[in-house]
């Protein structure tokens, strides 16, 4: 697999290098897509600093740096890339935005752009050009980065898709040939799995990534934290339905999920103790790349599926979203835009998504046809993570309130309290309502 990828990179790089050699090579105007080219003229002597979250998989950063190097060769613009753990990028980016000094470009997460929209460079021209050229941005990208419906304050990059990860053989043994598409059958399957002695499990501790399945649960029954006007409406009959369903679901879980943090379900799954969980593609990749025969067997048995859909009738998934922001204080806005444009063009973005091995889902419909999503069919569900995504602060406006409420685990705590039976669903909803109202106070 890795060899295959590497060869493809090399071919891609060689092709572009040849193209450059043949072209004029004078100014940033790649001949490959000259027909619709949007041309930025980088400032003289421009140098760029990029701060990004550190890779979840080596192939991501390898491919990213190949692209960066190509950009430098082509334009002569030096680019320095700094990596930080994804949870550390948020405070650093906020400080940079507000002190007006730091990296020119920041790759950050979730609602970050909405914390300081006035500190970000307007990239509407670039976003519209890329969107038009590559099949359009998915709605989630617009919800995060085009908050007023007109102006783009950043470019979507993708999402660390989380999907249902399951053991095909165990589902078959419990009488299910494929993963259920709706919540009723999902519950039936979970009950059947429990009876067979191969239960599933979903994290209910303060897990920043894997706890997000709780958002899906609330949304898929029509509940939501806030309405369009940022009024807190979590205490609702819809949430009640979600929590009552959750209670039945929890009864089928493996013991101990209340304490689960992000790594717990990976460990339990790879040890064969659970049949279903929600996760990024990392469980599968870890099993596949392991030299142990037992894990290889598990890898062959692993399948992925999108989340089941409940009464609302549309996908309501929740995962970590990635964006690319150009800071307004940059001395090189044209060079920054040129860089992002370069990185988002097919010649670069394709190999990058391929290198990331489905850890990162495409934000543009045009990249959904890349072979990376289908040459291993087990990756296919991860393709649609951005397509099916809702921002954590759904259905309200994003900003400090939505970021704070998410960081305080309000929805996850509510679901955990209610479905584990430590509080009645009504009590849990009222508590969540109160806690959220404090964040959304005007």
């Amino acid at each position, binding site marked *: 697999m890795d060899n295959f990828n590497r060869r493809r990179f090399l071919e891609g790089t060689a092709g572009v290098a040849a193209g450059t050699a043949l072209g004029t090579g004078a100014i940033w105007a790649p001949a490959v897509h000259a027909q619709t080219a949007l041309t930025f003229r980088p400032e003289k002597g421009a140098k760029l600093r990029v701060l990004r979250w550190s890779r979840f998989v080596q192939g991501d950063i390898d491919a990213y740096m190949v692209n960066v190097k190509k950009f430098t060769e082509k334009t002569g613009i030096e680019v320095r890339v700094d990596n930080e753990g994804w949870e550390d990028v948020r405070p650093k980016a906020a400080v940079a935005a507000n002190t007006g000094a730091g990296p020119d470009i920041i790759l950050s997460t979730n609602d970050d752009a909405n914390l300081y929209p006035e500190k970000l460079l307007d990239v509407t021209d670039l976003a519209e050009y890329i969107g038009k050229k590559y099949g359009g941005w998915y709605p989630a990208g617009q919800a995060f980065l085009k908050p007023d419906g007109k102006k783009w304050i950043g470019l979507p990059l993708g999402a660390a898709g989380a999907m249902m990860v399951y053991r095909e053989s165990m589902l078959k043994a419990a009488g299910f040939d494929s993963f259920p598409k709706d919540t009723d059958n999902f519950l039936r399957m979970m009950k059947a799995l429990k009876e067979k002695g191969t239960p599933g499990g979903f994290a209910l501790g303060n897990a920043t990534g894997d706890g997000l399945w709780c958002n899906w649960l609330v949304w898929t029954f029509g509940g939501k934290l806030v309405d369009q006007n940022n009024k807190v409406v979590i205490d609702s009959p819809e949430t009640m339905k979600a929590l009552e369903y959750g209670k039945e679901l929890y009864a089928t879980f493996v013991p101990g999920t209340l*304490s689960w943090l992000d790594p717990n379900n990976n460990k339990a799954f790879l*040890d064969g103790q659970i049949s279903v969980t929600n996760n990024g593609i990392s469980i599968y990749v870890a099993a596949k790349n392991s030299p142990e025969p037992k894990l290889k067997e598990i890898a062959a048995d692993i399948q992925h599926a999108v989340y089941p859909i409940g009464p609302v009738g549309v996908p309501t998934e929740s995962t970590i979203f990635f964006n690319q922001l150009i800071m307004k204080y940059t001395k090189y806005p044209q060079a920054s835009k040129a860089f992002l444009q370069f990185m988002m063009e097919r010649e670069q973005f394709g190999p990058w998504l391929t290198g990331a091995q489905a850890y990162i889902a495409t934000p543009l419909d045009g990249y959904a046809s890349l072979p990376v999503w289908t040459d291993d069919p087990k990756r296919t569900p991860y393709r649609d993570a951005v397509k099916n995504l809702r921002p954590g602060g759904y259905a309200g406006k994003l900003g400090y309130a939505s970021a704070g409420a998410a960081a305080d685990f309000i929805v996850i705590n509510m679901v955990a309290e209610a479905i584990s039976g430590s509080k009645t669903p009504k009590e849990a909803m009222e508590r969540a309502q109160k806690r959220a109202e404090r964040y959304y106070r005007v």
Partner: protein
Amino acid sequence: MNFLERLQNNRNALGLLFMLPAAVLLLLFLTYPLGLGFWLGFTDAKVGRPGKWVGLENYQYLWGDAVTRLALFNTLFYTFVASVIKFGLGLWLALLLNRNIRFKTFFRAVILLPYIVPTALSAIAFWWIYDAQFSIISWMLVKMGLIDQYIDFLGEPWNARLSVIAANIWRGIPFVAITLLAGLQTISPSYYEASAIDGASRWQQFRHVTLPLLTPIIAVVMTFSVLFTFTDFQLIYVITRGGPLNATHLMATLSFQRAISGGALGEGAAISIAMVPFLLATIMFSYYGLQRRAWQQGGADK
């Protein structure tokens, strides 16, 4: 005489000069951050966004916040239980190590181990020990036929509280034991000989010789122990992140969660500052309560 020579001959100026580095360090790295935190607690600052003065609003808000109240309770419970047990076991261990036992130096070195291992690493070890699926304790008890289901160490609120307390005790005992041992060794053997001649029992020796002479050390050790425990962060953050259902959130972890992950710097600072009165009270108690001369010399309060 030039300026330099005059300076060298002026004791006051020299004194000031020599104190300057220490003063700068204290002001820059202690007073300033503490003052800044204090000020931030009265503002609505967000990460990277300077805030406006909001007076006591953060504190009012926190007072009505169920999670903060729970964190305060957790912190007090955690500190009290862990400190009392650490003191009891630490003193016992120190008394044992103070006797003439074989391999004395070996044991004295070995009991420091938990303290040497970086907290984040020992926390990960405890995280595995308490794991819902892989706990070695549960596994052993199941194999021995004593239980038939794994213990939910970190999933049930009270289990989780006691589990993290146990981890804290394991880590904190060496500090108490070794320091008390050092204190024990400063007590002159002649006191014991004299009391033995007077016919004192072992218990009487402990009560009327060891304890009074050890009090100053106990006061210092326990002050530090309580301060460390009250402000603990790493153990909790690695083992539970404050879960399940916020049952193990301490003030320090909640402050971090609200201030850095959540971006509410002002509120997080207010939570941190709310810890200060408790810490001051501990220090006051130890200085004025335990370090009184009369008590140390075996007399009674007047």
